[in-house]
């Protein structure tokens, strides 16, 4: 290999001279890109390109850039090692080949290069099209189309009036109405118990004073008011109360005058 590179540096170095060697690789988007560039430089139909020649070129190029920045060059060095392996495998007798075969590896590499090359061409052709803002121009000062959304509010009479009803109902002072229900008032219980007690001098259970055929709700009310009536009569000294056991039946009798 001559001391000259067999090709021009693909891109002029963009960095300061002292970094020139380091930054040579920055012209490429990775080792595959560099390989593709080298392949193109063989200036033959890519179909006839020699992978071995390509490997040599790549290794020579990497060898030139001795003072590679490692963090930048790692990918390139990995590729170099792999290519060196590929080259030796390709040169070995077939019998000693491993799986996958070096031929398969080489073919896959070429397929990858072809795909990257295709996209590179496509990108170039895409960028060469008539682009808006470069080759063709849209209107400089369009008036613009304005679409004003106007809300048309909907509400009907019923919704309005019932909303008012709801407000009034919601905020009216809370008045609890007890619906008509069968009750015996204290006054009537007092009259009733006092009248029934008038003649009894034996102890009589409170239950005896309740209306005999009252429906349950009235009966309960009568029990409560009759109990209070009994207490009232006892307070007035007109009756005596007796209960033999806690929660036992309550008895009363009249106090002899």
């Amino acid at each position, binding site marked *: 290999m001559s001391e000259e590179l067999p090709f021009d540096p693909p891109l002029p170095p963009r960095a300061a001279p002292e970094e020139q060697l380091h930054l040579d690789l920055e012209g490429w988007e990775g080792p595959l890109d560099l390989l593709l560039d080298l392949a193109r430089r063989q200036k033959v139909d890519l179909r006839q390109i020699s992978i071995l020649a390509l490997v040599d070129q790549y290794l020579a190029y990497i060898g030139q850039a001795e003072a590679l920045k490692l963090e930048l060059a790692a990918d390139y060095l990995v590729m170099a090692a792999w290519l060196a392996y590929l080259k030796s495998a390709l040169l070995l007798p077939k019998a000693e080949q491993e799986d996958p075969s070096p031929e398969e590896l080489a073919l896959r590499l070429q397929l990858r290069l072809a795909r990257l090359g295709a996209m590179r061409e496509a990108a170039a052709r895409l960028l060469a099209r008539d682009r808006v803002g470069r080759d063709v*121009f*849209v*209107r*400089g*000062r369009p*008036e*613009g*189309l*304005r*679409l*004003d*959304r*106007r*809300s*048309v*509010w*909907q*509400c*009907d*009479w019923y*919704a*309005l*009036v*019932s*909303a*008012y*009803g*709801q*407000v*009034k*109902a*919601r*905020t*009216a002072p*809370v008045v*609890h*109405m*007890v*619906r*008509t*229900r*069968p*009750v*015996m*008032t204290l006054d*009537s219980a007092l009259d*009733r118990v006092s009248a029934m007690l008038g003649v009894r001098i034996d102890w009589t259970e409170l239950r005896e004073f309740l*209306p005999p055929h*009252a429906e*349950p*709700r*009235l009966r*309960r009310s*009568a029990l*409560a008011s009759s109990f209070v009536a009994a207490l009232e009569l006892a307070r007035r000294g007109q009756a005596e109360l007796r209960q033999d056991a806690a929660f036992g039946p309550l008895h009363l009798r009249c106090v002899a005058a």
Partner: protein
Amino acid sequence: MTGPDPILRSVEATLFAAEQPMSVEQLSAHLGGAEVRPALAALEAHYRERGIRLVERGRRWQFQTAPDLAHLLRREREQLRRLSRAATEVLAIIAYHEPVSRAEIEAIRGVQTAGGTLDVLMEAGWVRVAGRREVPGRPVIYATTPEFLSHFGLASRRELPGLDELRAAGLLDSVDEAYRTLAEDPADGADPVITASDSAPLEKPAQSA
């Protein structure tokens, strides 16, 4: 057809892409000193009947939409939207109590009223500011508009049903009451337990015997 004259095409494209109207001199300079007046005249005539026009304004030329199509540039799309529950309540309160301040509306509703609610009602054209109340703070007061009456098919506010009518229509039934009706009726057999809250004013008692 042979394409239009190159200068005409250039003038057309330049004015189309220009961000400002251009004078004859500017155009000519832009096109390397070409004589642009004939092209302008031809373009002006060409576009006279079309959707766009080439017009001269203050000695500067520009394309613009044909005046009779100006309405296309600004379209209104009507969007039907139902008034929210809160807005309906506020509207009803204003209708029944007008003129009424925001604080009064809130006192009646029992909840704060978002500012946006009144804005919506004014945007709908149903409520207007009717002045200020001459009390400390001079609060703005609101009233309904003639559009309100016509939208709701009312000859006047007096046609709004009164409280008695609302009650008769069941519209004043509170939620509590409706609930009690539900809760009590099926409990026919259960003995009513008299509690402090329940017992207050007794109605005429049903007496036995």
